[in-house]
């Protein structure tokens, strides 16, 4: 029904009327002779859509003695004073305020800004060219002019950068020629006056050419600009651009400076599209929609990178339905869907919701009787009640212990080589989950752990203290969602992470040492501390070979501590940094939707933007306000309408995979899937081990669930290996992709053969009870899929049993099919 209504709405779409005109920015302050501001005229139409009508508008200024405006809506100063700039379209008018000061002043030259802009805008310092790890053709530039002093050095003094050594390779021939400026390599190369692998990048009649030439003529100084305000950020209008195929939107880039002033930077950045098939972008920032879909436009300025989301949308839905919201989570999701003209699916059915929420909160399928009860219950608050019952339940504690054992890497090899050590670590995680300890406290204890307690086990893979660089990179990835690893050997190729920052952070872990020998099973004879006993700094910078002292990522100062454990400062700084809450909520969100708001969940970077930045901020703020309460966060997520949407798509959202317009299917983790096979068939799995646990050797206690196995490297299970149980030697990344071995195992493996009608199994019990085929089907459907079978399915299955001749064999094969099905193996 819904689909038909929508189609009718689309068909009814007629010519919309202009209802509102707006000029952007609303106001601008221009300072200096060379300053300028691009304005846009944005029209809003009766169907709620927006369009950029800058080109169609008539532009004028109220005070021509102060400023002038081009037909293309660029305002530049004439004299100090104030004016308005006005746009008129079809008799509708809008205006902005412009203030002009210092109209005779010329800003002093700044290498970082003036040359950095040219190098960035023309792509010289992109990571594919001179901004790459090793540079290109002997010239190394910092990516996006992040490190202007280094760039200045290579340009004015010459020589070739080496990745693994601070020594300079080759002759130091300057790339500028102060005596004969036109002969500067910095000009002749991009002009292609001499061979240049990057091709022609500059023209002699360009402003940029003149800027460089003047700079060299003036002696190629770094400039007095250091005292001037520096660029601290970029703001993009519109923050999210939606347009139809063949439509266009122009982007305005505004730069924010350290003294608080703003400047139009649209002409001083490099635009690039992440997916040119969906949308292209011109050098002056006009985005053109090419095909339905979503992508991002990256915007690079000297020292700054940002991005803006672009949606190329389908036909406008004339009567977009009103979608009720459940909580703040829905606000940004629904707003974006509306903007992109995607209608979310209906609310999920009760059975569908129950299966999903049980799997997500507890890793456990609801048994058939619970499904029946829940579906039959007439209580408007029943969803919230079941959520409250699930959160904090014993299964919840099992499941989140399991999930955090993944991220925190509980494994014999990873925690000191004996099960006793890893089990202590597992117990520590479990206590934290069971008591719902604030997540920042958990992080702080883990980061600053000393002595041989549970929380420090992860520092000692293979019973040796892990390399400082690895330990640090792991902590930053787990707790801040950033991957610093690339900066270990060189400045990060496309992020604002320098190698010095990396090693400064690593140095926090560079003083760990073991005091005394390790004797297995006698952990008390060993101390594990970061006391700087003899003042010796353990860590050397790989390029400069100089000792590195601990420095926080933002260079904020550290006071020496009486207890000699600088990791306490690190832990406090990390957990109070905005990255901490963002990374935590994004990770948890990812568990409930199969993808993060930033995805992968621990790969935040400027070139990997969030799909819903406001949602991330709101969730993080709420998480922080709740005292880093994970249960509160989870409840907020699962109570949202977004989480509770149906899996069934409609005409507008079938291809949407990023905007949460329906519940997408996601592979169930290996351990949960095996537990589900056990639950549906009613036949437990035995896990063999060769390591002693709880006094039992040989196998885990009867009825142990796969999610409760403490060490993945302690118990064998062909099924778990095939379905991608990670070994936790590295931070686990479960892919959930099928493989041939799974298919073989499904056909012939013990998991799928032996248990189908074993004594005590669900099927055997039902047969012994004399159940009819229809009720056997029903029972299994409820157990495995959380739903009843429909009439067509019942007819088809009944037919297949009859056709087979052998009833019991047929039912066995039915059970096989059920636990081999995609609907079973996925959460949706």
């Amino acid at each position, binding site marked *: 029904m819904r689909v038909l209504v929508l189609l009718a709405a689309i068909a009814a779409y007629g010519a919309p009327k202009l209802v509102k005109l707006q000029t952007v920015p609303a106001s601008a302050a221009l300072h200096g002779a060379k300053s300028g501001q691009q304005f846009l005229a944005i029209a809003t139409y009766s169907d709620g859509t927006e369009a950029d009508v800058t080109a169609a508008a008539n532009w004028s200024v109220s005070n021509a003695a102060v400023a002038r405006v081009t037909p293309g809506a660029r305002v530049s100063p004439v004299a100090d004073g104030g004016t308005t700039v006005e746009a008129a379209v079809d008799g509708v008018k809008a205006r902005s305020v412009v203030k002009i000061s210092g109209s005779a002043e010329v800003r002093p030259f700044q290498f970082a800004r003036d040359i950095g802009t040219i190098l960035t805008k023309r792509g010289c310092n992109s990571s594919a060219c001179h901004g790459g790890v090793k540079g290109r053709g002997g010239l190394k530039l910092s990516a996006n002019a992040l490190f202007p002093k280094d760039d200045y050095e290579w340009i004015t003094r010459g020589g070739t950068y080496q990745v693994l050594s601070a020594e300079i390779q080759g002759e130091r021939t300057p790339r500028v020629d102060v005596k004969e400026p036109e002969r500067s390599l910095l000009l002749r190369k991009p002009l292609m006056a001499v061979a240049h692998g990057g091709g022609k990048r500059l023209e002699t009649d360009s402003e940029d050419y003149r800027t460089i030439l003047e700079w060299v003529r003036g002696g190629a100084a770094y400039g007095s600009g250091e005292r001037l305000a520096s660029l601290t950020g970029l703001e993009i209008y519109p923050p999210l651009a939606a347009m139809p195929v063949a439509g266009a939107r122009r982007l305005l880039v505004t730069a924010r400076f350290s003294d608080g002033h703003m400047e139009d930077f649209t002409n001083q950045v490099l635009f690039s599209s992440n997916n040119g098939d969906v949308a292209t972008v011109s050098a002056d920032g006009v985005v053109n929609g090419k095909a339905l879909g979503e992508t991002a436009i990256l915007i690079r300025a000297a020292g700054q990178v940002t991005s803006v989301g672009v949606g190329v949308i389908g036909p406008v839905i004339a009567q977009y339905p009103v979608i009720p919201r459940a909580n703040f989570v829905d606000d940004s999701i629904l707003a974006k869907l509306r903007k992109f003209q995607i209608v979310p699916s209906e609310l999920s059915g009760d059975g569908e919701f129950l299966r999903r929420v049980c799997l997500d909160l507890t890793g456990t399928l609801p048994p058939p009787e619970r499904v029946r009860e829940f579906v039959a219950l007439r209580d408007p608050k029943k969803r919230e009640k079941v959520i409250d019952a699930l959160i904090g339940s014993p299964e919840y504690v099992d499941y989140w212990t399991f999930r955090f054992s993944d991220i925190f890497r509980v494994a014999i090899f990873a925690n000191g080589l004996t099960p006793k050590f890893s089990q202590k670590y597992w117990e520590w995680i479990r206590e934290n989950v069971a008591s719902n300890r604030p997540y920042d406290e958990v992080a702080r204890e883990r980061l600053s752990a000393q002595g041989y307690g549970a929380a420090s086990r992860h520092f000692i893979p293979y019973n040796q203290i892990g390399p400082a660089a690895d330990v640090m990179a792991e902590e930053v990835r787990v707790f801040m969602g950033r991957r610093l690893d690339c900066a270990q050997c060189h400045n990060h190729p496309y992020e604002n992470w320098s190698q010095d920052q990396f090693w400064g952070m690593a140095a926090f872990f560079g003083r760990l040492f073991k005091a005394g020998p390790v004797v297995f099973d006698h952990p008390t004879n060993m101390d594990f501390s970061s006391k700087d006993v003899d003042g010796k700094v353990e860590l050397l910078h790989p390029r400069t070979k100089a000792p590195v002292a601990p420095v926080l990522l933002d260079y904020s100062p550290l006071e020496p501590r009486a207890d000699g454990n600088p990791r306490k400062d690190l832990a406090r700084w990390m957990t109070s940094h905005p990255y901490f809450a963002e990374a935590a909520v994004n990770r948890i969100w990812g568990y409930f939707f199969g993808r993060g708001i930033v995805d992968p969940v621990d790969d935040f970077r400027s070139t990997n933007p969030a799909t819903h930045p406001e949602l991330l901020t709101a969730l993080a703020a709420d998480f922080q306000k709740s005292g880093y309460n994970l249960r509160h966060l989870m409840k907020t997520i699962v109570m949202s309408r977004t989480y509770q949407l149906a899996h069934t798509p409609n005409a507008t959202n079938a291809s949407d995979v990023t905007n949460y317009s329906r519940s997408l299917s996601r592979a169930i983790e290996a351990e949960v899937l095996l537990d589900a096979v056990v639950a549906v068939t009613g036949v437990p799995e035995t896990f063999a081990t060769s390591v002693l646990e709880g006094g039992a050797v040989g196998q885990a206690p009867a009825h142990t669930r796969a999610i409760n196995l403490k060490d993945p490297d302690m118990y064998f299970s062909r099924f778990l290996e095939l379905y991608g149980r990670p070994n936790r*030697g590295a*931070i686990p990344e479960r892919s959930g992709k099928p493989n041939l071995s799974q298919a073989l195992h499904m056909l*012939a493996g013990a998991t799928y053969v032996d248990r189908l009608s074993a004594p005590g199994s669900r099927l055997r019990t039902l047969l012994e009870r004399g159940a009819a085929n229809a009720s056997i089907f029903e029972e299994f459907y409820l157990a495995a899929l959380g739903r009843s079978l429909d009439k067509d399915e019942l007819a088809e299955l009944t037919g297949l049993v009859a056709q087979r001749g052998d009833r019991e064999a047929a039912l066995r094969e039915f059970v096989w099919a059920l636990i081999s099905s995609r609907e079973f193996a996925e959460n949706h």
Partner: protein
Amino acid sequence: MTHDTRRDFLRAGSLGFLGMGLPRYLAAAPAASAKVKSVILFWLEGGPSHIDTWDPKSNSNFKPISTNVPGIQISELLPKMAKKMDKFALIRSMHTRGNDHPQATHYVITGHEINPAMQFPSIGSMLTKELGPRNAVPPHVLVPKWERGRQYEDYFRAAFLGGDYDPMCIPDPGKPDFQVTDLSLPKTVSQAAVDSRSAFLKAVDRRYRALNETAEHTDMDAFSAQAMKMILTPAVRDAFDLSKEPDKLKERYGKDSIGQSCLLARRLVEAGSVFVTAAGYHGTSWDTHSDNDKSHRDRLCPPLDRTLVTLVEDLEERGLLDSTLVIAMGEFGRTPHINPALGRDHWPNCWSLALAGGGIKTGQAIGTSDERGANVTNRVVSMGDLYASVYKLMGVDWTKEIMSPIGRPIKIANSLEDKTGEPLAELFG
């Protein structure tokens, strides 16, 4: 943005659903013009003492003996090999990283040091991905699987390359009850049952898949078809069936895990496997921290000598030697000095390995070590150099880099100091 690749993926998947494309796994193997089709890695777990095997020195308590190649001497513990030295190339100047078993095993099997931020694919997985499968036989096999702990096994896996390139890890063929699971239908499952299962599966999944067809679903269909083909192809099952080998040959290999794993490896490469790790030394590790000499003399070297020579002879008799490269190595060598427990400890700084087959130039020893076997004195060979040589033999561009999921380029032949390995010219002479 990641969803774009995802979208492409889905697009590819929908083609697959229409039968217009199948996963790469099922695609025809790339036309490998190279003569070498397979690698057998004879895995000497624990790390053999190089000075007591292939690089004899005065600080070994065993005498060097002459071989059938003038100028090359090896330890008296390997008499059979000495008579066949013309079939082997030794490298005596391996210089690698990792001073304990996990680190060193990871290093020699992947070419990279352990990094908690990511898992690296093994050489076997990278080769399998480059070359593709042959004859429906599992292309990448590890035999036998470890009985305790799966950490080491994981180092042999494909990491981000995906499950298709993971080794199939099978039980110990040296045990009397040896049977490869999942390759044949259990006796309780008849053909009628198989057909009925498929019909039920279609019925159960119809409603769900009508709503939701993903690339993963179509991949699984393709894998199921492939699995069915494997199970129903006698040649595949036969490749794992050691009862088809004459008892005499089994004796020659040695009727233990070490010998039978190598025999199975030969059967598998004959049938079409690309990379087989014969790891029969699990239980009798070369990790001789105590009683180094006694262990090498009584327990370790005799089966190595017997099995390695038999493997090379057997491959040659079957005309498989030129198309199969044999690598016999551990994760490092052992210390030049004897410790108080009469053992030798770990030594990645300088160690030896043996190569045979693959059309390489044999009857030579590459590189030299100092008088105690402590340091390389001539021709440092890195793991990357060895990998580059293997890739070159198999027609794969060894300078290639593969992209990790986060966009970090990974050298497939990673040498020391972030360099790419160079094929050993001596092998191609």
